[in-house]
Structures are given as structure tokens and as C-alpha cells.
């Protein structure tokens, strides 16, 4: 697929966000392309997690949040009154910082999404569970223990269960909020390989505080600082030839 043929999944226009009086995101303009891995990097408190949680409106769980501006997902403003938040989250999956499987069996974890969205047929569910677990590269490890509680496996495996859970409803976009920050290096590597694999079918937006990770797995990188986008470009360019002095300072480890 050539660069020009790709379409934008998300267009963020003049997004501002406040937690009470704290201005957490300032005039964000970003265009995120489909079938790419977009990394969001920046020091703690720069707004990168806030931004990714805005993309599926999970940020609204914080009672004092206010926003202005627009985020167009596939051309529709997600802040529109008639845009159901459940509909948006059915199209946009999310993987969290700490693995958060449901306290149910591995099978029921994966089948949860399809079930709440009305898929009840046991055979179809079996198929979806297997396909999702294979998609998350964990089928071989858990195929004999699908009825065990998801908390009985390791943290790295739990995180891949959470990825499989997101895949089970075949979303369009997968948001990942520092998905490897609670994992050991080997599990991290597995998740990174998985991200590479998944971008063939999904658009992935990943927040990471690990710059090497962003360099390894992403196509585009956005550098956030104090609630603003300092620089957004191809990952190669960001890491080899950044145009902003602050980006250069950050990626060379002078702060953050």
C-alpha cells in the first residue's frame, strides 16, 4: 500500500482538555493514518495517556473533565451528542497499562465482547476465541487451560489475553496505553512483535515512555510535552533528524 492511498482514522482538530482548572491538552492537531503504528512519547505528565484515553472517550470517567475542539473518527466527530460512546468503543479497542483481565475463565474473557454485542452461538464463539488467542500469539500457551481463571497465568500472558480480548470484536483501531510498562523484557518483546503483526489488520496507537520501543515498532511518532504536540513525523525522522530542539533533547536523554 502506498503512502497516498492510506486514509486517516483519526483527525484531531484544535483539541483542548481540562481536568478542573488544569489545562492538560493544548490545541492538539494530529492526523493518525490507518494500518500504521503511531507512537506517542513524552515525559510523565505530558498528556500522552490523557490524549489516547480521549480517543475512545474513556477520559470522561474522570468527573471534572472538559473538552473543546473536535476528534473525527472516520470522519465523524466523536464528541457529537448523537455519537454513542458504546458504539465508538466497539470500533476502538483498548489495552491498558496494567493487565486487567476479568475475574473469569480465559475463554469467558475473550468471549465477553462478542457476547455483550449479541453473539451467542457456541460454535462461532469457539472460533472467535481461538482466532483471537492466535492473533495475540498466546493460543499455544493457553489452549489446554481455557477454563482456568485468567489470573492464574503470568502477567505477560495476562496482557496478551487482554490484547486477544480486544481483538475478539475485530475492532478498527487498537489503543495501547503503555502496554508493556508492567511486563518483563521477554514478555515486552513478545508484545512488540505482536504489534508489528497486528498492524496489517489494525491501526494501532501506542503510548510509551520507552523511546527505544517507539523507535523499534512505530511508523510515526508524536512527541508530547506539557500538553502540546512538539513534533509529529515519521519515526525515522524523529529519531535521526528531529526538527525541534526539545525533541532532540528528549530523545537524546537530556531530560524526561
Amino acid at each position, binding site marked *: 500500500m502506498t503512502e497516498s492511498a492510506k486514509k486517516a482514522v483519526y483527525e484531531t482538530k484544535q483539541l483542548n482538555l481540562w481536568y478542573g482548572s488544569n489545562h492538560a491538552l493544548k490545541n492538539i492537531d494530529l492526523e493518525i493514518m490507518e494500518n500504521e503504528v503511531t507512537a506517542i512519547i513524552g515525559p510523565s505528565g505530558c498528556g500522552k495517556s490523557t490524549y489516547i484515553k480521549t480517543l475512545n472517550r474513556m477520559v470522561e*470517567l474522570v*468527573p471534572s473533565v472538559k473538552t473543546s475542539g473536535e476528534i473525527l473518527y472516520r470522519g465523524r466527530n466523536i464528541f457529537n451528542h448523537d455519537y454513542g460512546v458504546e458504539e465508538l468503543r466497539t470500533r476502538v479497542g483498548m489495552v491498558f497499562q496494567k493487565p486487567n483481565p476479568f475475574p473469569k475463565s480465559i475463554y469467558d474473557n475473550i468471549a465477553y465482547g462478542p457476547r*455483550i454485542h449479541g453473539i451467542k452461538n457456541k460454535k462461532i464463539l469457539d472460533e472467535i476465541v481461538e482466532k483471537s488467542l492466535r492473533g495475540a500469539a498466546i493460543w499455544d500457551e493457553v489452549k489446554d487451560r481455557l477454563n482456568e*481463571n485468567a489470573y492464574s497465568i503470568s502477567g505477560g500472558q495476562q496482557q496478551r489475553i487482554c490484547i486477544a480480548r480486544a481483538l475478539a470484536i475485530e475492532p478498527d483501531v487498537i489503543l495501547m496505553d503503555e502496554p508493556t510498562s508492567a511486563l518483563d523484557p521477554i514478555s515486552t518483546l513478545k508484545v512488540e512483535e505482536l504489534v508489528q503483526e497486528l498492524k496489517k489488520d489494525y491501526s494501532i496507537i501506542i503510548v510509551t515512555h520507552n523511546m527505544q520501543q517507539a523507535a523499534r515498532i512505530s511508523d510515526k511518532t508524536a512527541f508530547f510535552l506539557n500538553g502540546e504536540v512538539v513534533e509529529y513525523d515519521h519515526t525515522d525522522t524523529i529519531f535521526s533528524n528531529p526538527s525541534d530542539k526539545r525533541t532532540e533533547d528528549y530523545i537524546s536523554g537530556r531530560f524526561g
Partner: protein
Amino acid sequence: MRPSVQEMIAQSNGKKNKKVIEKIIPIILFLIASVSVLTSIGIVLTLIVETVTFFTRVPFFDFIFGTTWLPFSNKEAQFGILPLIVGTLKVTLIAVIVAVPIGISAAIYLSEYASENVRRILKPVLEVLAGVPTIVYGFFALTFVTPVLQAVFPEIKIFNAISPGIVVGIMIIPMIASLSEDAMSSVPKSIREGALAMGSTKFEVAWKITVPAALSGIIASVVLAVSRAIGETMIVSLAAGSTPRLDGDFTGSIQTMTAYIVQVSKGDAGYGTTIYYSIYAVGFTLFVFTMVMNILAGYVSKRFREEY
């Protein structure tokens, strides 16, 4: 120059009374703690001794399988406890039917829907309901609920199982709601977020994620509440009547185990009579019921605990 801090500490530690206090305190605390344990043991022993005396006069099997409870009969007194057990179960059944749906609904509302402000107001109010003296509930059953029921269903008598059942249910709602709410609130927020991020509605999260995750705590709260309902005395003494009966009628006067004990205790059954000993046997039966429920609650909360 003043001595160094270490020297002062050494000096202070050398004082005798400090060591003595450290030795005496645990002994005193142990003795005080023993009082409550010994009291419990004493009560159970008394129960057992008097119950055994009762069984020297009335055969054990006549007691637990007997279908007639006629202790005050002049001709031949009969001590078959089944009618009293049935009376207790009738009241408990109605209480459970009233309290479980309301209590769990209230818990779901408080833990999943109510804002922090609403919860701060509602939870204490709910707990006040738990502090209402049971005699007040008893009057409420007799002078308010029963007349209302009679207005709707004229066949209901002044003493019946339904009215005290409903009021005992109201009494145990706070217990179920409060304990279930605790269990549901302790389900980590991250798990709810995971479900919301899949496009779940709030109710789907509550019903398919939080309630199953908190199920052990919810069941335990229900079992404990049932145990309270079985042991409830004042409400049934006032509003349920004093007619031991084995049938399935809820509209007429019944008698529960607790109400029988009250009836005999406030009457003038002489020390040493069979009736006197019978209240211990009934009390012991009651004790077995509530103990089994409490053990069951402990077992359920361990056995069905979902890990997270």
C-alpha cells in the same frame, strides 16, 4: 554538655517499671479477651446441659420429628418442634423474598451508579435503618403493615406470617445492601474500565462483571442476613401470633422458635418443669440453625471467591 541521645535512651531503658509494664500488659489483655470467649463457652454449656435434661423427659426423635407442639396441654403435652421450625421458615422466606432483590439492587446502585456525593449521603442513611430497635419494627408490623395488608387482602388475620416477614425483610435490607456494596466496591476499577472499553454499557459492567466478581461477598451477605432473620425475635413476637402450626398457611397466626421462647420466658413456667427445659431445647435448635448459616457464609465467601 548534655549526654548523647544514645546514652539517654540507655538510661531510660534501664528503668524497671518499663519492663514490668511490658510483661503485665499482655497478661491483662489476655485475661480480658478470655472473658468474652469464656462467656460464649458458658452460654453454650448451659444450653447443652439444660437441653440434655430436656431430652431425659422427651425423647429426642419425638422432639425433632414430632408434628405437634402442644406444651401447655393439660392432658398430654407434646413437644414436636417441626411446627415452630416451619413458622420460622415462613417468616424467613418472606423476609428473603423482600430483602434480597431490594438489598442487591441498592448495592448495585450505590457501587456502580451513585456519585460520590449521593453515596456519602445514602450509605449512612441505610445504616441508620440497621440501627432501628427491633421493637419499633415489631410495632410497625403490627400497627401499620398488617392493617395495610388487611385492607388489600381481607382474608389476612391480625396475626400472620406475611407482615412480620416483610418487616424482618426490611430490617435485613441494610445488612445485605451494605455488605454487598462493600464486596462490589472492592472490585478493582481497572477491571470495570476494561469492560467499558469493550463498548459495554454501565449495566452490562454491573451485571456481567462486577456482580459475578463480588458474588462470594454478596452470597455471604445474604446468608448472614438470613441468619439474622432466623434469630429475629421481637418482630415475630409482636406480629406473628402464637399458634404453632405445620401447614402452609401464611395468612393466619403462626409461632416461630424465638417467639415461643419469649412466650414461655415472660409467662410463669416454674423452674424444673418440662416447659422450662423446652425453651433450652428450642434455643439450642435455633443456635444450630444460625451457626450452620454462619459457617456456610464463611465457606461460601472462601469457596466462590473470584481471584483478581
